[in-house]
């Protein structure tokens, strides 16, 4: 029981990270109907920017950890947004209105470019960061024949879950209350009509990419804190899993992306905890296939109507 609860906590933490990345996929898919294949690598870029900022702040002599974390999050969000914007501008915008495979190919190309750019400029070796936030609270204690098991909620997990909650709330408000969010929803429903009533479609799409990248940057920083190690290749797996989360929750739906992320995180952690660690990725991939085949509109998504 204690073991299960501990896994639940771990799963929620990991799931929050997947959820943050999944929002980027779901929004982009919702608005222009393409899989932004490079989004996983934007997440990786965000993690690297966060790492460099963190080190720079420590070198500059900042002592207060909460202040450092705050600055790192803001800087990473800003700079990663610039990357998201550039990728859209370079690789997707020129192909708007082209046939459907074209942006997918450039997305794969962009993914290769980002990975190799980071590998060349930052080196191929993994970057280990010692755990920065230590300690936690003990939730419950139990004893088994092998000794005692402690269910612990570390401060780091709290920070990750809390940040995700704050960002999600702010983001939902942004989408539901502001004019930008309204434009975004309008483009999602019908881009042509939105353009006719005066919505700047190109700008809205760019901002969608910027927002997705900003959330991915936070996810990247969380990933760095949680695992303490990043390399240029983390984007691929995390990207596919986050996409799975977006599909599971129903693509185009924001709460769905979060729900899907948490479910994927839980499934991955439970699978590793109770079955085999080696096949945890197979579990995630299989869920992707199963969901798409049997539940193509996801848990919270609208069924897609086929127009002739």
């Amino acid at each position, binding site marked *: 029981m204690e073991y299960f609860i501990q896994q639940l906590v771990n799963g929620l933490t990991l799931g929050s990270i997947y959820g943050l990345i999944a929002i980027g996929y779901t929004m982009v898919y919702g608005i222009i109907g393409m899989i932004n294949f490079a989004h996983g690598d934007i997440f990786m870029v965000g993690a690297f920017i966060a*790492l460099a900022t963190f080190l720079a702040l420590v070198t500059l002599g900042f002592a207060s950890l909460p202040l450092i974390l705050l600055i790192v999050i803001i800087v990473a969000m800003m700079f990663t947004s610039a990357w998201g914007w550039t990728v859209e501008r370079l690789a997707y915008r020129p192909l708007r209105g082209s046939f459907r495979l074209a942006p997918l*190919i450039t997305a794969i190309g962009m993914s290769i470019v980002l990975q190799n750019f*980071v590998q060349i400029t930052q080196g191929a070796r993994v970057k280990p960061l010692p755990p920065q936030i230590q300690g936690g609270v003990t939730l419950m204690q139990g004893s088994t024949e092998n000794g005692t098991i402690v269910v612990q909620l570390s401060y780091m997990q709290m920070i990750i879950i809390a940040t995700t909650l704050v960002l999600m709330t702010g983001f939902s408000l942004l989408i539901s209350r502001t004019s930008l969010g309204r434009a975004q929803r309008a483009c999602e429903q019908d881009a042509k009509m939105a353009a006719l009533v005066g919505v700047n479609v190109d700008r809205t799409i760019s901002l969608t990419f910027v927002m997705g990248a900003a959330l991915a940057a936070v996810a990247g920083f969380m990933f760095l804190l949680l695992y303490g190690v990043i390399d240029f290749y983390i984007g691929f797996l995390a990207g596919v899993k986050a996409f799975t989360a977006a599909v599971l929750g129903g693509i185009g739906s924001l709460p769905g992306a979060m729900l899907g992320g948490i479910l994927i995180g839980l499934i991955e952690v439970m699978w590793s905890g109770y079955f085999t660690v080696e096949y945890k990725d197979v579990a995630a*991939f299989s869920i*992707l296939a199963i969901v798409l*085949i049997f539940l193509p509109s996801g848990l919270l998504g609208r069924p897609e109507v086929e127009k002739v």
Partner: protein
Amino acid sequence: MAAGMPANGRVDRNAIGESLKDAAVAAGLAAILGFFFLALRTDIATGGLELTTRWQLYFLAVAIVFAGRMVLNVLVFRTERPVTKTILSASSAFGARLGALGGWAGRILFVFAVLLPFFLSYFFPQQQRQYIDLAILIMTYIMLGWGLNIVVGLAGLLDLGYVAFYAVGAYSFALLAQFFHLGFWTALPLAGILAAFWGVILGFPVLRLRGDYLAIVTLAFGEIIRIVLLNWYTFTNGPDGISGIPKPTFFGLQLARGEGSFADFFGIEYAPIHRFIYLYYIIFLLAIVTNLVTIRLRRLPVGRAWEALREDEIACRSLGINTRNTKLTAFAIGAMFGGFAGSFFATRQGFISPESFTFIESATILAIVVLGGLGSQIGVVIASVVLIGGLEVLRNLDFLREIFGAGFDPTRYRMLIFGLAMVLIMVWKPRGLVASREPTAVLKEKKKIGADMVAQGEGH
């Protein structure tokens, strides 16, 4: 990295001033993007990570972006007579001509490919082995490209996990040789059948999906197969791979030194190069078979159904075409050729491990098909030569080291350039290099359809 495309196609009167402003914006963007990657670098040092600065590189990169953008503005984006216009029209004329001359260009390339080993041994006796190796590699990708072309180009099903069938073929042959001591020629059809079988198994559940969803599920299947190969240690030997895969024989004759070998039988002097030339002809034969089968299939009802499916699935269904079977045959036949290529890969390398079957391999093959022009056979050849040959040329550019200093290693930039080329070619010519798509089934006379006039069939 260069910054965005022109804001719009308008030509400004104040061209130079606008260009300068635009180039400054681009340089500013490069400065923002590059700051954490070019100016700063994290390295592992004693006592944790260490941050080093590289201001020189950073400012150089920003300056290059400024200059590059300025040159582009002056020559291409903000002028009334952009240089690319001439290049573009020349190249599209070239593409159209290639499409029209498809038969002739194909024949010339065929003759060239047949004579290639002799040509190489005559002109480059020194680097013969290296060049033959490269030719084998390119030919393998041509074959894979043709195989995937059936699925993506003809049937319009986007498959991002094609490498799975390549892996199934390679592992089928390696395991059959290991456990049942089968030779290459006996195992080859079996590997093809097994791969086709897997094509049906993986294809069956995903038939209802279309477009991007199909792509991502096939990617997942490709990764699942790789992870299983990696972790099923007792059967596949896991990450250590399988070695000692037998070489192909020539009607039972070994291409090796000694009694009863190829050289011994024909009474010629043994040379190690014979084996490579033989391998080259095997893959050449396999590739030609793939091509001929594809060309024939296009004229059969099933091939026409594929093309109809690509153009409009709903129309297909209402015309009574069995879309399920049509898609499955495309998947199975494409997978079968992937399997053939896989077993050739196994016998050529003599060693395989899951590392050879990563996603990047699928992406490369897909890039070849799409950049070549979907459904175009000659386009696949051109794209393979450009992409794979280009990568190898880059590996051998020693003179760059003299320019950039001894520490400069061009191979590090291979994949970066590869990715950039994918993006640039796609943005430049979204329909691929050879972008003319002619209907193969015609009523009275052939009418040419400009490729960009045809919407990709996604059901709308």
